[in-house]
């Protein structure tokens, strides 16, 4: 079942194209990371998906509802954590939550219980009746997450959920996101430029740059698309570049790159590693370490970012 489907989703602000022809499918229950630098079009995309902004072209459906005509229904079923907590500082934590509960038209008795439950869950029980203006950043962020899930939404949009938090508070928020994602069937759409966070939390990623969705997929699949074969990092010394080239030539068909402290080579399979090491040693190299390269999300992300516009790396976006 699809939680989000976008087909050619585009948004222009006068002459500027903020989001360009996005095709994307996010499945129900998935944790999807929407990666991109500031100004890439992440927030505009979320605003269109929530029915706040009308698309200039293309279509999108959220939880089966058309974003063009069913904004209110969509907003009833989704939760959004905005980039800044945006709480009412002069109101207490309880008043902040109760206000939003009224807007979601939660039954008063249920709302009271739900507010207490969330304040306890997010360890804000003792501060429940204090004005939010005196809260730390971490407390505010936890309260903002509570607000986003107050009405138990099926789909949660989280915009930079750990932005500006200290490492301990950020870890606390990540743990909470993990808990939320494990609750039955909840889909999470995480907008972030924190690659480490995306790697830890998400099943699939989409990378947006200058309004264009450059790649969609699981990190391992994307790594395979960019770097075919087996890449191996070899830490070595004792050989100049020319000698290294001569030693690697017979074994490494597709070339190699010098990296800090050694060389990175592409092989067809693991079986080539012993012969490669033997050849290097015979040529006079002192080999200290040989390790298959594991491509991090950062490697993938920057590779995608450096692609020219229009060079999309994706299948059907699903």
């Amino acid at each position, binding site marked *: 079942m699809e939680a989000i489907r976008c087909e050619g989703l585009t948004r222009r602000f006068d002459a500027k194209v903020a989001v360009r022809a996005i095709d994307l499918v996010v499945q129900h229950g998935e944790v999807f990371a929407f990666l991109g630098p500031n100004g890439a079009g992440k927030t505009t995309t979320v605003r269109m998906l929530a029915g*706040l902004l009308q698309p200039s072209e293309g279509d999108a459906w959220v939880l089966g509802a058309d974003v063009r005509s069913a904004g209110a229904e969509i907003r009833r079923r989704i939760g959004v954590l*905005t980039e*800044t907590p945006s709480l009412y500082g002069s109101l207490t934590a309880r008043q902040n939550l109760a206000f939003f509960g009224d807007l979601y038209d939660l039954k008063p008795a249920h709302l009271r219980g739900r507010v207490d439950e969330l304040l306890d869950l997010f360890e804000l029980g003792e501060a429940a009746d204090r004005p939010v203006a005196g809260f730390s950043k971490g407390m505010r962020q936890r309260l903002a997450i509570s607000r986003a899930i107050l009405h138990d939404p099926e789909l949660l949009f989280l915009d930079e959920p750990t932005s500006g938090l200290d490492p301990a508070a950020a870890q606390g928020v990540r743990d909470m996101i993990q808990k939320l994602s494990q609750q039955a069937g909840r889909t999470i759409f995480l907008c972030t430029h924190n690659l480490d966070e995306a790697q830890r939390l998400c099943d699939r990623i989409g990378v947006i740059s200058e309004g264009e969705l450059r790649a969609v997929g699981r990190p391992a699949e994307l790594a395979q698309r960019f770097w075919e074969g087996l890449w191996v990092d070899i830490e070595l010394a004792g050989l100049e570049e020319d000698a290294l080239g001569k030693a690697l030539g017979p074994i490494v068909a597709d070339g190699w790159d010098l990296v800090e402290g050694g060389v990175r080579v592409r092989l067809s399979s693991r079986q080539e590693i012993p012969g490669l090491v033997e050849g290097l040693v015979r040529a006079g190299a002192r080999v200290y370490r040989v390790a298959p390269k594991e491509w991090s999300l950062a490697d993938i992300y920057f590779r995608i970012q450096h692609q020219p516009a229009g060079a999309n790396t994706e299948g059907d976006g699903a």
Partner: protein
Amino acid sequence: MNWRAIRAVMIKDLRVVLANRMVWVPMVVVPLVLMVLLPLGLVLAPTLDPDTFGSGEMMLEDFGSMLPALPEPVRQKLAGMDPMQQWVYLATTHLFAPMFLILPIMLASIVASDSFAGERERGTLEPLLYTPISDQELFAGKVLAALMPAVGLGLVGFVLNAVVVNAAGYRLMGGLFFPTADWLLLVLLLGPACALIGLGVTVLVSSKAKTVTGAQQASGALVLPVVALMVGQMAGAFYFGGAVILGATVVALVIGLALVWLGARTFQRGELVARI
């Protein structure tokens, strides 16, 4: 219409306003000055300078051009009073009447600028827009939040004014003399209509202003028509009585409703979110 959501927005806005000293201090101080201290001064002035007032010089000097415009019943009433009484009666019931209108205009403008421009300035607008509340419900909640204190505090100010003026002038006037029927029309009809104008202008200004201060400054020009009313009455151009008040109420209502309608048209999610 989801009235629960409208009520929630209204209560939330009022709570936020009451928690902001920069907002509620003027809301308390201005009514006190306008409706208590100033009228008190007008009533007590004759006792401070009884010679001038007793001779009637001060009254003629201040009200000379206004007197011919007064209707016959008021003139007859004045004819039976001594100069001190004439001063107190004219100053509190006629000269001061347009001043009252500053109150609903200013109060509506203060709360509306905090509610509309303030929500954006504090960065709290975006989460609101992500909720299922409709644009009309959100607008209605904010309009009520601005109108209620304007009308309510206007009434409170009027009651205080009546108590202070009657108490201070009781001996001089020989009994209760305030309010007149015109004042009731002023407070119950023209006041709320003027609050609507203050609200409408502030909503329109707030849709462009980036800060509460900017919105308030731009809305400040609204007191100029009130000053013009006072000057016009003093100059004898018209008598600010029942007919003028009723006519002004109709005009103010039409203008106010048109402004609020225009404001509601600019208050749309797509427009609002693009300006965040």
